[in-house]
């Protein structure tokens, strides 16, 4: 820490005044940034932990953590996409009006009149797609590298909250343009909130406790999607959820630091660290002993800044990690901008509460759920997602084996179980989909079957049951909970992809099966 220079006062106050004025730039800078140039390891550490925004990040990272093929930078990219979304969102807020009267026309203005409005809107839309993809893939990489272990259990849960918040942000944003797509997708989506009626009706309880209607009224403030719903969604999308997300991301990244940095294998051979810079500053730090060390107490024990590089093979986060994180961010930005030049976000006709969009499809990442909702509103919209979330949350608490951390798929067994499970899931999904498309389901066979039976026995719950059985079998066969978890996660992940694909491509008007969207009537 450089001391503020003692100025040899030129006697008079006015002279002092002038000299202080002359030193203003230097003093201003020093009062703002207390550390010197980032040439020593210590200064670099200070650059990180004396900055409120950077201090949630580790000061030192393990060299292994910089391996691109370990994280693919997905967590950073998720955060980057969120940053892009925040900036473009703020710009859109300058023109967007959350009222049923003006929402649609303000969107039209943004597209056709506001300078660069179309581009900003496109980047916002593509950013949302990218963020959802990154978050899903990030979760998969954390899972498959066993990175939820050894103190990281809680951060896995924080991650799940982030997943839900990300999806909630997309969903609330979808209503804002107030076009046909928005109106009907959100009508369906919010009616899912009232689907517990499917169960309370069967139990004859709806008149006493109507949980469904309560949740729906809370969400949209009315009986139908209207101005109240628009204002509520606007508030959730622009203020409430982003604030929550920022808080949880801060906790998440702080925990990565507190949990000992990113996960890594126990034995890291030199071949895994090839091409990753070493800590060249180590000796240099030793050489500079003169400066005060008390400000380092929090980082390093002892009175000297010892930083030999050993025993953990770490390296300064500034600049090595930050440069890579910045690169990941720029990559995401570039992808979003390029896509936005070539492909416009859609805007359909203005919302018309009398005529549904046909087909009325939710955003793609909800289409898998929409397919399940097409079997039972309650199970598809609430039951199965809840089961999936609880299942995901339980993973680190059921798989308490300390081994198998830091290696993709753990070992040969893990790799082959993941492979076989994805084939199994693929075949099961296709079979069940083909069955329902061709032969319908219970109600087509027994017209008077009670609804409650369909609610609990439908293609969606069948899939869940089959996958659960499959993973239990795997646990038994390989005598390993981790391997069973890999089987289950893979089944769900592949099923999610297939259902999403199926509902995107093969569902047309009246939610009927078509081999290709170009075969839809009216095309």
């Amino acid at each position: 820490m450089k001391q503020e220079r003692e100025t040899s006062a030129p006697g008079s106050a006015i002279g002092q005044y002038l000299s202080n004025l002359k030193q203003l730039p230097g003093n201003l800078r020093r009062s703002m940034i207390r550390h010197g140039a980032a040439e020593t390891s210590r200064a670099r550490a200070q650059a990180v932990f004396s900055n409120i925004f950077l201090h949630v990040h580790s000061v030192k990272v393990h060299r292994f953590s910089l391996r691109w093929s370990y994280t693919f930078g997905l967590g950073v990219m998720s955060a980057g996409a969120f940053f892009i979304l925040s900036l473009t969102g703020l710009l859109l807020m300058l023109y967007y009006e959350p009222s049923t009267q003006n929402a649609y026309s303000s969107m039209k203005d943004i597209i056709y009149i506001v300078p660069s409005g179309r581009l900003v809107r496109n980047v916002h839309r593509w950013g949302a797609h990218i963020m959802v993809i990154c978050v899903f893939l990030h979760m998969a990489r954390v899972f498959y590298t066993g990175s939820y272990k050894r103190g990281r259990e809680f951060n896995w849960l924080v991650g799940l909250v982030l997943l839900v918040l990300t999806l909630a942000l997309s969903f609330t944003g979808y209503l804002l343009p107030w076009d046909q797509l928005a109106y009907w997708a959100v009508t369906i989506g919010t009616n899912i909130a009232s689907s517990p009626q499917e169960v309370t009706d069967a139990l004859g309880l709806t008149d006493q406790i109507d949980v469904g209607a309560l949740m729906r009224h809370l969400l949209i403030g009315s009986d139908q999607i209207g101005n109240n719903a628009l204002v509520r969604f606007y508030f959730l999308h622009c203020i409430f959820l982003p604030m929550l997300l920022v808080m949880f991301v801060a906790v998440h990244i702080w925990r990565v630091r507190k949990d000992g940095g990113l996960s890594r294998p126990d034995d890291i051979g030199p071949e895994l660290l090839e091409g990753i810079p070493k800590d060249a500053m180590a000796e240099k730090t030793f050489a500079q002993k003169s400066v005060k060390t008390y400000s380092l107490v929090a980082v390093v024990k002892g009175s000297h800044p010892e930083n030999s590089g050993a025993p953990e093979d770490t390296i300064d986060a500034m600049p090595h990690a930050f440069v890579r994180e910045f690169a990941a961010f720029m990559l995401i930005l570039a992808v979003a901008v390029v896509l936005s030049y070539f492909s416009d976000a859609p805007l359909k006709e203005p919302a018309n509460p009398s005529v549904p969009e046909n087909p009325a499809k939710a955003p793609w990442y909800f289409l898998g759920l929409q397919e399940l909702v097409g079997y039972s509103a309650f199970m598809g919209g609430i039951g199965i997602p809840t089961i999936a979330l609880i299942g995901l949350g339980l993973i680190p608490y059921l798989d308490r084996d300390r081994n198998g951390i830091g290696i993709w798929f753990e070992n040969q067994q893990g790799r082959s179980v993941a492979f076989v499970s994805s084939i199994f899931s693929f075949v099961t999904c296709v079979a069940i989909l083909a069955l329902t498309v061709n032969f319908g389901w219970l109600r087509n066979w027994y017209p008077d079957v009670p609804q409650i039976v369909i609610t609990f026995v439908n293609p969606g719950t069948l899939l869940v049951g089959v996958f659960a059985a499959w993973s239990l079998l795997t646990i038994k066969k390989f005598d390993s909970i981790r391997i069973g978890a890999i089987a289950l996660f893979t089944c769900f992940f592949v099923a999610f992809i297939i259902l999403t694909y199926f509902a995107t491509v093969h569902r047309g008007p009246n939610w009927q099966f078509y081999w290709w969207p170009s075969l839809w009537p009216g095309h």
Partner: protein
Amino acid sequence: MSAKLTNEEITRRGFLGWGFAVLAGMVSFAIFVLSTLRMPLPSLLPGKSGRFRIGRKADFPPGTARYFEEEQTYVFADTDGVFAISAVCTHLGCIVGKEERQFVCPCHGSYYDLSGKVKSGPAPKNLQWFKIVKTPGGRLVVERSKRVAPGTKYLV
């Protein structure tokens, strides 16, 4: 340690004084929190009143089928009488379309017969039937807030 604690004896007067303040604070805080939690739940649902006029009996000779778009209601007449069926799908609230001999929901493909009974698809319930009444002036009114059992017709 324990001696020290007994030194700071809590007097009855002190306790009553502080205790009262703390209690009052906690009670008002609880009331405040409970009542603000209520706030997001509207007491009056904004929206249309449930009633709408559809015309006179003579406008509905047997065989009539009319759709009231604003109100999302089909009104039919047969030789027995006039009846009104909701067009709102019981699955997730899309608007069903009428075909020759059935209703079809575009959103997830629920099919109902013309009396609103579910034939196939994910809809958990039959379409709602609404009550029809006559005003003193002789006009027919559909009351969307009053549900009636399927088959209940306004007799001619």
